């Protein structure tokens, strides 16, 4: 069940859609693809409602959880079938090109039923981009893939976005992957969007900011810690050799550095520590659970 879900995705953007199982990610995907009708509101993709316009589906690529492949057909037959459904020009050439691209040329004549999960996923990705869609909907594209294949898929998604200006809507549980490749994310919980922002903004925003200072002289560490402790607006100072870690609550990073320098403490490096997407996700989930309770 979705509730007041509202967002837009820009052309060429890689948009991450996150949430726990049952949050409504697949339902959102189905609504966007015109497979389910919303009880109220509209889902517009490429200026069209896909539930009302079959021809618009030609401009959309989809990789669902099951890859959309037939076990009793060969890899080549599977791709050729979809190429003909999408009326791809010179389907034979395009299929050969994609089989090569995903490294399955040597298995082109084998039944897909004999493929490993990873091979099926690669073939599924080739199928999804076969007709060069303008927007690509991916549901957990790297699940079941080995690290090398995951890297390949991530590179492919980035290339499609940067070079071909393809818009990518990515449903994923893999927070590290989303942080690496997505420009914006929405975090869903029980059918409602709890966070919607750019990764950059989400990871640098928050009431507290992690900050670390590396001192040039380790002997000044104790003095620096005492000085900062007497400062208002800083919490949780930790010391590890010449590195001081702290949370900035009401004070800015430059003020901390200026104070230290004015007091004769040599600062070698100062770094604002961004929160990981995982931390943000877990915070959002905790907050959402609290709201629900």
């Amino acid at each position, binding site marked *: 069940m979705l509730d007041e879900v509202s967002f837009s995705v820009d052309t060429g953007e890689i948009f991450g859609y996150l949430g726990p199982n049952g949050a409504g990610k697949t339902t959102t995907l*189905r609504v966007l693809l015109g497979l*389910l009708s919303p009880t109220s509101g509209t889902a517009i993709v490429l200026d069209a409602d896909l539930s009302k316009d*079959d021809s618009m589906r*030609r401009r959309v690529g989809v990789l669902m959880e099951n890859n*959309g492949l037939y076990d*009793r*057909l060969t890899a080549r037959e599977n791709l050729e*079938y979809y190429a003909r*459904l999408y009326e791809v020009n010179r389907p034979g050439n395009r299929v050969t090109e994609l089989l090569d691209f995903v490294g399955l040329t040597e298995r082109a004549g084998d*039944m897909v039923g004999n493929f490993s999960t990873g091979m099926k996923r690669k073939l599924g990705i080739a199928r999804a981009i076969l007709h060069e869609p303008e927007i690509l909907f991916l549901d957990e594209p790297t699940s079941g893939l080995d690290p090398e294949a995951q890297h390949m898929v991530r590179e492919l998604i980035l290339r499609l976005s940067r070079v071909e200006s393809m818009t990518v809507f990515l449903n994923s549980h893999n927070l590290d992957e989303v942080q690496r490749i997505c420009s914006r994310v929405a975090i869903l919980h029980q059918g409602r969007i709890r966070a919607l922002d750019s990764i950059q903004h989400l990871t640098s925003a928050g009431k507290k900011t992690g900050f670390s200072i590396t001192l040039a002289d380790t002997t000044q560490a104790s003095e620096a810690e005492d000085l900062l402790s007497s400062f208002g607006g800083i919490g949780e100072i930790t010391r590890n050799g010449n590195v001081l870690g702290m949370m900035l609550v009401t004070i800015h990073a430059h003020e901390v550095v200026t104070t230290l320098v004015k007091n004769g403490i040599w600062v070698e490096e100062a770094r604002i520590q961004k929160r990981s997407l995982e931390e943000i996700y877990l915070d959002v989930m905790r907050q959402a659970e609290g709201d629900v309770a």
Partner: protein
Amino acid sequence: MSRIMVVAEKEVRQLIKSRNVMLSALLFVGVFGIFTVPAVLSGMGDTGAMMDTLGFYLVLTLGVFMGYLFTAQVFLREKQSGVIETLLCTPLSLRELWFGKVLGVTIPGAILAYFSAILIMVTGSAFTGQTLVPSLPVLFHIIVVIPAFIAATSGLIGFTQFILGMRENQILNFVIIFGIIFLTTFIRELTGPEFSVTWTVVAAAFGLALLLILVTAWLTRFLSRERIITTLSE
């Protein structure tokens, strides 16, 4: 090539590669085509008329059963595996998808029905010692009417498999099997000793098949992507 033909060709190719299904179908046709004939022909006076009757109802029953067997592979299997969801995201309209699948079931179903007719003819000829050839109305019935019935029944079964959930589909399977048994018995009752296959009978059967096709084609208006998606197995 139209998208309907693309779907039909894929379904035929996939059915041919489904060894278990094809073996079951061939076994069924073989057993009924060979072993039923001597039992039916024994004690009959007019073997020619009896061959016509067999060609009329036995080949029809076998054809419809083949259609049923293949429909599960063509319609239901895609729903069970979830591949249908990807297909629903392609430019294929629901009607194109449905027609393509019906055609994909009808072509191999009809070929097996023709094969069963040949088997019945060969077995009957071997059993009686004379060359038995079906009459012209029965020939028309086998070549044209039976494929129409296969299309109509597989279209109807496929339609219901699309709109029903997996549990309801299991119940439907039993209903269909009993329906086919009932159909066979009903036609045999209808085709008593006095029954002969005339052009009128064949025309009536053809009319019924066409009506069924039209009704089923009309029913496809009520197919919706949402209905198919919400009845997928989890």
